[in-house]
């Protein structure tokens, strides 16, 4: 299934194990915003930290970043295994409110026994089961976002009614693992649905990703491999009744720009061989200069293998700075990447429309 090459999308991780203060996150987010990136991600896990490598709740950190930035999308990892779906829905919707439509969340599971013991509610389960449950969580979360129609708040002076209760809906979700009655307590978020991301770097996630995600990152070391996985994900999305284009597919790349060539324009043109190194456990690694990375991105994008890239800077401050001022600047110079944000919401950056509330549609249809 081939879809014509569209806008290039770029996103960056600002992960910082052992970083506990707000200015670090704000600085990196602003840097990414200067580079007009679609969004930043912040990883999270309940898992044991290791010496000196604790981490803060990712959604909390990006909520702290929201008022300190203006346009960039904010996508924290939020785990679904040991959390309450109702709270997840409220927290992500609130991130959308405080960022005025820039929120997303990366769905992730907790598969280890160590994580299970931190919560003590249930034992660890196989990844397949957890991803099926993650899909249920994504489903009920979206229903809760729809449970207030956009115009449910009426403030009708004559009748004294603040809301029109006909525009509030029970979700009555009954899954294999939990049930939720609804409606949400948070009114429908500005984007309708904040963006759902899944790191589809392991096939165990593919079904959930194809069914529920707006954005997926895949793991591939060549454009051919990436294209094959993208086709497979899109095929599955279509099988779930979605449009192929509903999935924005990004290649996941770890980026080490430590001692590559200088900034573009300052030295001779680089034509170094551009390749990714397979690294077990993590995303494939690019090591080199910013211009070489721009070559790689251009090459994959022109080959129509992916819609863009999700980069994980190996040394966040240094590599993100070189990525923005080197790689992105070059891609902008080539006309491949935006030089300003035309819109203000994350869905807008991704070219995704704002979904209508399913309950509003049902109500309309029933009239």
């Amino acid at each position, binding site marked *: 299934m081939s879809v014509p090459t569209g806008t290039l999308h770029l996103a960056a991780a600002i992960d910082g194990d052992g970083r506990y203060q707000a200015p670090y996150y704000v600085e990196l987010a602003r840097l990414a915003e200067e580079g007009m990136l679609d969004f930043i991600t912040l990883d999270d896990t309940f898992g044991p930290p290791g010496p000196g490598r604790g981490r803060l709740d990712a959604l909390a950190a990006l909520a702290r970043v929201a008022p300190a930035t203006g346009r960039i999308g904010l996508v924290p990892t939020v785990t679904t295994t040991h959390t309450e779906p109702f709270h997840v829905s409220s927290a992500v919707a609130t991130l959308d409110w405080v960022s005025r439509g820039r929120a997303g969340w990366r769905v992730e599971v907790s598969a280890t026994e160590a994580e299970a013991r931190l919560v003590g509610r249930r034992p660890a389960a196989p990844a397949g089961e957890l991803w099926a449950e993650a899909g249920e969580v994504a489903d009920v979360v979206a229903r809760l976002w729809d449970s207030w129609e956009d115009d449910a708040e009426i403030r009708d002076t004559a009748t004294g009614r603040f*809301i029109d209760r006909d525009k509030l809906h029970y979700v009555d979700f009954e899954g294999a693992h939990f049930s939720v009655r609804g409606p949400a307590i948070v009114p429908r978020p500005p984007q309708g649905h904040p963006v759902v991301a899944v790191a589809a770097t392991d096939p165990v996630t593919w079904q959930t990703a194809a069914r529920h995600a707006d954005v997926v990152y895949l793991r591939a070391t060549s454009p051919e491999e990436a294209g094959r996985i993208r086709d497979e994900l899109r095929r599955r999305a279509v099988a779930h009744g979605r449009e192929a284009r509903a999935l924005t597919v990004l290649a996941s790349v770890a980026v080490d720009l430590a001692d590559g060539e200088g900034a573009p324009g300052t030295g001779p043109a680089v034509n170094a061989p551009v390749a990714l190194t397979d690294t077990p456990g993590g995303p494939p690694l690019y090591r080199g200069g910013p211009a070489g990375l721009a070559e790689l991105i251009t090459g994959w994008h022109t080959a129509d293998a992916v819609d863009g890239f999700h980069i994980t800077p190996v040394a966040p401050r240094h590599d993100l700075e070189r990525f923005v001022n080197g790689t992105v600047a070059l891609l902008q110079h080539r006309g491949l990447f935006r030089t300003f944000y035309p819109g203000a919401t994350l869905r807008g950056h991704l070219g995704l429309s704002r979904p209508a509330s399913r309950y509003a549609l049902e109500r309309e249809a029933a009239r």
Partner: protein
Amino acid sequence: MSRQHQQIHLAAHFPGVNNTTVWTVPPAGPTTTPGRCAPRSPALGSQIDFDSFAHLARTAERGLFDFFFLAEGLRLREHNGRIHDLDVVGRPESITVLNALAAVTERLGLAATVNATFNEPYELARRLASLDHLSGGRAAWNVVTSSDAFTGENFRRGGFLDRADRYTRAAEFVATARELWDSWTPDGTPRPFAHTGRHFTIDGEFGVPRSPQGHPVVIQAGDSDEGREFAASAADIIFTRHGSLEAGRAFYADVKRRLARYGRAPEELKIMPGVTLVLGDTAADAQEKAAEIRLQQVSPQTALLTLEQIWGVDLSGYDPDGPLPDIDPDPDSQLTQGRVRHGDPLAVAAKWRALSEEKGLSIRQTVIEANGRQSFIGTPEAVAAQMAEFVAADAADGFILVPHLTPGGLDDFVDRVVPLLQERGVFRTAYTGTTLRDHLGLPFPGERG
């Protein structure tokens, strides 16, 4: 420090879900101040837009308040089997919005109400410790325990805990959170923890290092005997409804007396009633405004509904401007769901009936008269004097101000009353520390010995 100069602690309650936030018409009074534009009507502001939160929080910080406070409700209320549609409703998730507010304030404490029944210690301790880090030591947790099967329908754990268990779970929850918050060494290494108790059996390593306040400040809201005991054993602040001078003094004495049992000094638990206020240029002006506000808060529809919530029966045939029904309440009624019931309905109804008969009040007038919270109503001078008197008389250590307007409801207080409190020497003229514990004069945990 002499008793007259006892320092007042102040907090700002964001008017969230309730019938007391006025949204129907612009208020009289402060809007006539030159240079200040009138709030738009009917939308006076929003209970959900971030701008409203930012405005109120910045105002509170401008007024050097100790903290900003958010309440919580986890299920939309129902009445007579349908979603209740008369109240302001819809609110953000507290901890997330407070993290965002940490970006637009520098010193103000940030307090989130979070239920101990529908959360797990590891996750919540982690979220609160994160807020404490991201705000530089300004986090507080108001531990509430209200729980019922109705709210439980939104949660995996479902069901409910009965009354006694709610507090055993809350107490174990707070104790467990403290074990987690204490588990890192001062040099930044996680120490393994293991907790085995009636409600939780967990172990591992906590993911967040010790936060700037060591432990976020713990608040308890609840007036029952178990609630007071829990507060005396575990809380730094108690948020109460007892706001009148006499009731306040009795409550204050009772709660402070309980502290010794836990080896705590009276200053280690601050008592802060929730209060409303109405300022006027003269006493008469303030009273008149207060009466108007009450009428706006208690519409004829709201009056009937309030009565139904106590009586537990459908009273839609009654005239809000007529007398109280002569039928008795149904104490086992499920007519209203998701609202905390205060007191025995039969006793409340008897009290209301007596009040109505004595003063010849209609339904609406009775509700207004009986349901008013403690209010400071008067000129700025009078309000400042009353507040100082309350604190000097040991009826409170401070107040949680509950404005009736969003988001401009504290502007006048900060502009006109705070300077008078400062002149009296009962309120700070600058923040002297950076953390909420500093503002409250609370010991850093671990240094208590």
